[in-house]
């Protein structure tokens, strides 16, 4: 018979928790969000066979890193909710606490809190190789006796101690008997009254409830209980900030005694890691070289996402084109065939095309994060970006956004503060991404004369540069605006640990990349495919007999007669639902100088901005071929405005359209990713509206000024 056990991993940040998690679960892991919040929940499973032949199925939850059970940020609320509330769906049978052996005191603080919760727990003392190297000895037998829980020395990097941990997990460990500190003494009446009111495992849970009465999910469906306990607290004048401070000092007092007993520094050598870290920091955090190196790293990342990703993306594109042709030819002609090829397959292609960029970007980010460099980036950039409501770590998403907002927004996860992360996500799509480039290129060549200044500086190039700059300024300006509009869920701190430099753990990096790709495909991907199908329906079907006639003519038209084919395709698009919508929104977009043809392109290019060029080709009967861009340009240049009889694409319309594309949220993939990263449709819709209004107003103003 298979027995099931729930295990939670908990520990300080940088204690090697994720390495241990990966060791235990391998690729049997899933990332989701904890219910109701956008905090990443990593779960995984493993099986352990015990010596008596029974098998155990272990479900492991990796809780966000924290220094204590007292929640200060959104992430830190999770360990507290999971461990203190027995009704929580992730509440463990066994809690595994991971301690950094090189900083035992601080790790024992969290450990001692968990011991006092009185549920089965195991302490893992990690990084034993470094502890031994620095000439320190730890008496584990004594430590285990004093804590009242099993203690396992470990080196998670090379797997030393893993088997001991597995055995300990299934060994039916008892509830710790000893109180690490006597919490009941801190607030005797309150603890007693709460325990009389609710059934609890320990005095310390009661004490925690007293301290976090508003946060704990425990009472969410029992508000009268919560009110009752609040009444108890008021009656006894319970001051949680004094209580927490007293508890913390008391714990550290006991811990200091304990550490003196169990830790022997024989011939303490200053740790090599620390000396190395200090030397490297002198360079990497230097006031000049530090920025120079960071800039160089950013440049390489940008190159990777922009240029290196181009050829695998091209291959994905070709593979899907090939598949489309094969599928199209293999199946009988008809609606189902078209839906499969132009709707679903095109949508899938639109998802897979992002994978090279996501893989490359996250390889870099995972390396920077894992080595400890990212904490330094935060440190160096904090003062500059804080003013805009952003975080030091926002630099990576913003720069990556110049290539593509999709991987960029996924990378904003490294920002711990919810408000700063949200603002980063909201403004990143304003950075000029590579999908805008074909649109800009077409429009610039259409309305900007090819002047040269001083012989080398081209006007067209200057305009392109200006568009990138405008995107950047809009992003920073919007961030500043949102700094005042977005409410903070918690107080923003910058108090964080700067870890010592470590070699990247390639396995961890591999897992990170696999997980990011998996999450993108399965969560954002389905939205992208769905919207892609909707857009296909809009542009490939239409009401009335006229549409049907054109469609039939197109199907029976002579394949060799490209002119007729192109003409009919344009007619078909005009009569389709997309065409009708394009014409319907003409009154709305007319003040910007746009006609219904541009209206259609605005709708279809919601799939991806560069679709604008393809749609223009179809509308102007050029055929969908990329090589025909020059022809599209000629056709668009020759286009006359119905009312004025002047060229439709003049300077004013060109700029108006360029600004519209610079600001508007014309990208379903970005919206799908924002939905996934913020947890619901609220923020992507707000973002859509904000960027739309910004685009409309800017285009309106520039059109009025120039015409």
């Amino acid at each position, binding site marked *: 018979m298979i027995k099931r056990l729930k295990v939670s991993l908990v520990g300080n940040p940088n204690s090697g928790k994720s390495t241990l998690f990966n060791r235990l679960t391998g690729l049997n892991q899933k990332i989701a969000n904890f219910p109701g919040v956008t905090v990443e929940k990593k779960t995984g499973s493993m099986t352990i066979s015990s010596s008596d032949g029974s098998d155990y199925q272990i479900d492991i939850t990796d809780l966000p890193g924290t220094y204590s059970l007292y929640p200060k940020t959104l992430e830190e609320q999770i360990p507290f909710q999971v461990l203190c509330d027995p009704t929580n769906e992730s509440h463990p049978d066994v809690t595994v606490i991971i301690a950094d052996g090189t900083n035992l005191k601080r790790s024992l603080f969290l450990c001692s809190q968990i011991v006092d919760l009185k549920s089965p727990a195991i302490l893992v003392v990690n990084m034993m190789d470094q502890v031994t190297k620095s000439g320190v000895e730890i008496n584990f037998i004594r430590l285990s006796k004093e804590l009242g829980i099993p203690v396992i020395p470990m080196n998670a990097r090379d797997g030393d101690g893993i088997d001991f941990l597995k055995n300990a997990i299934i060994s039916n460990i008892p509830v710790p008997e000893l109180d690490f500190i006597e919490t009941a003494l801190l607030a005797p009446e309150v603890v007693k009254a709460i325990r009389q009111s609710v059934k609890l495992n320990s005095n310390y849970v009661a004490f925690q409830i007293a301290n976090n009465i508003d946060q704990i999910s425990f009472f969410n469906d029992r508000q009268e209980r919560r009110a009752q306990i609040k009444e108890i607290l008021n009656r006894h004048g319970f001051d949680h900030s004094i209580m927490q401070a007293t508890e913390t000092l008391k714990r550290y007092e006991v811990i200091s005694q304990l550490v003196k007993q169990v830790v022997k520094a024989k011939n303490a050598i200053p740790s090599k890691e620390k000396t190395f870290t200090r030397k490297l920091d002198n360079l990497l955090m230097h006031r000049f070289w530090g920025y120079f190196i960071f800039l160089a790293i950013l440049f390489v990342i940008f190159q990777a996402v922009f240029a290196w990703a181009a050829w695998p993306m091209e291959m994905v594109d070709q593979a899907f084109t090939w598949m489309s042709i094969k599928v199209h030819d293999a199946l009988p002609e008809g609606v189902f065939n078209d839906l499969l090829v132009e709707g679903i397959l095109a949508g899938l292609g639109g998802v897979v095309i992002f994978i090279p960029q996501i893989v490359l970007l996250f390889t870099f980010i995972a390396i920077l994060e894992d080595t400890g460099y990212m904490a330094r980036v935060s440190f160096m950039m904090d003062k500059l970006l804080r003013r805009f409501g952003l975080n030091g770590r926002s630099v990576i998403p913003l720069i990556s956004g110049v290539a593509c907002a999709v991987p960029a927004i996924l990378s904003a996860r490294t920002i711990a503060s919810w408000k700063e992360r949200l603002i980063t996500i909201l403004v990143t799509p304003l950075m000029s991404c590579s999908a805008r480039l074909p649109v800009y290129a077409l429009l610039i060549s259409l309305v900007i004369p090819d002047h040269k200044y001083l012989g080398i500086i081209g006007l067209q190039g200057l305009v392109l540069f200006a568009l990138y700059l405008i995107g950047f300024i809009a992003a920073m300006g919007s961030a500043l605006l949102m700094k005042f509009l977005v409410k903070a869920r918690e107080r923003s701190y910058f*108090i964080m640990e700067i870890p010592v430099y470590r070699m990247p753990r390639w396995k961890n990096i591999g897992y990170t990349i696999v997980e990011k790709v998996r999450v993108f495909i399965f969560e954002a991907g389905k939205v992208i495919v769905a919207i892609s199908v909707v857009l296909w329906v809009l542009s490939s079907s239409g009401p009335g007999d006229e549409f049907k006639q054109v469609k039939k003519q197109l199907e029976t038209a002579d394949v060799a007669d490209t002119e007729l084919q192109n003409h009919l395709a344009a007619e078909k698009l005009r009569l389709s639902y997309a065409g009708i919508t394009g014409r319907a929104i003409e009154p709305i977009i007319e003040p910007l100088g746009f006609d219904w043809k541009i209206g259609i392109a605005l709708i279809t290019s919601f799939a991806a901005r560069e679709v604008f060029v393809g749609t223009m080709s179809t509308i102007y009967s050029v055929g969908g071929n990329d090589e025909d861009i020059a022809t599209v340009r000629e056709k668009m240049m020759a286009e006359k405005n119905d009312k004025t009889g002047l060229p439709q694409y003049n300077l004013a319309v060109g700029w108006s359209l360029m600004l519209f594309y610079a600001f508007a949220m014309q990208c379903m993939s970005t919206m799908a990713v924002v939905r996934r990263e913020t947890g619901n449709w609220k923020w992507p819709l707000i973002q859509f509206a904000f960027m739309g209004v910004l685009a409309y107003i800017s285009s309106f103003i520039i059109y009025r000024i120039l015409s």
Partner: protein
Amino acid sequence: MRGDFKKLSEIKLGESAVIESFTDDTMKLKLLEMGCLPGEIVTVTRFAPFGDPMAIAVADSMLSLRMSEAANVLVSIRS
């Protein structure tokens, strides 16, 4: 002896001081948990290139905090 207390934000690069008390309750709790206890020695190891935030070495680890946050930590310089 209160007159001898300084704010942590006033300590110069490379200098050490002893943590005495905190003037902000929420931050006090956060710092205590991370091992910044009264009586511990802090050394200012680095300032970010624009003079803010600062990095301190305390109790086996390096922490960073903004100057506005460091202003809530009172320290004394003992010889």
